């Protein structure tokens, strides 16, 4: 198996699911704010491209729309909040402009581990196995875009 170790684990526990888990060195209240305060979201979420938080209506039924401005275009992610339980859990629908009308349900659970550490568990549930694989593939594509963008940055600097 290739490469260096990563601290994020991505598993596919069932045909229509993706589970992402990572322990971060940040207290749970802060992680909750990082997901729910538009100014903070824009600083870290997504794939390292410029992110514009167009909507973040943090309540049941509220809309969210976060738009990524990458080297290959502008893509939004959006949906509605189904459940908001601060600071432990939210559930929302999740749709990417690149795969319109393929809606996933994302459940984000924040577990307080004490000593300023938090376990983040993200469960993405899709309607079909094909959608699940489509989401994974778009993730890879975006990752390559990010790598190329960094390369561009290096070239510009030198």
């Amino acid at each position, binding site marked *: 198996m290739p490469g260096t170790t990563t601290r*994020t684990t991505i598993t596919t526990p069932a*045909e229509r699911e993706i589970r992402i888990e990572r322990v971060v*060195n940040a207290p749970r209240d802060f992680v909750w704010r990082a997901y729910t305060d538009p100014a903070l979201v824009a600083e*870290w979420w997504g794939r390292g491209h410029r992110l514009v938080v167009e909507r973040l209506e943090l309540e049941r039924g509220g809309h969210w729309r976060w738009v990524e401005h990458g080297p290959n275009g502008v893509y939004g992610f959006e949906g509605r909040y189904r459940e908001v339980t601060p600071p432990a859990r939210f559930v929302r629908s999740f749709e990417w402009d690149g795969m319109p009308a393929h809606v996933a349900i994302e459940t984000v659970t924040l577990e307080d581990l004490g000593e300023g550490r938090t376990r983040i568990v993200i469960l993405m549930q899709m309607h079909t*196995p094909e959608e*699940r694989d489509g989401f994974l593939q778009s993730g*890879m594509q975006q990752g390559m875009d990010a790598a190329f963008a960094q390369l561009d940055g290096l070239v510009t600097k030198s």
Partner: protein
Amino acid sequence: MVQHAATLDAAFAAVADRTRRGILERLGRSEASISELAESFDMTLTGIKKHVAVLEDAQLVTSRKTGRVRTCRLGPRRLEREAEWIEKCQRLMDASFDRLESLLERSKE
């Protein structure tokens, strides 16, 4: 790209089942006949044959028949591409969570 996606689909579908993952692990140790596999997994011959067929479609397993015995072994394609693919996604998410952590550092300043 479409072909690539189709083989990935088949491979992911093949390994989404506990018994089939078990068969891959078993064949990773040594080749085995259908009846040996059926015994190891406490399944009927028909049941094991179905699982092996799914793994063969995904090119993860091959089998050949000698006389009345069908022997299975790992196929030409391994799960490296799938592992590599998931690892790329992991790196991507890692970078994102790293930014979240550094955000905390900056907010302390």
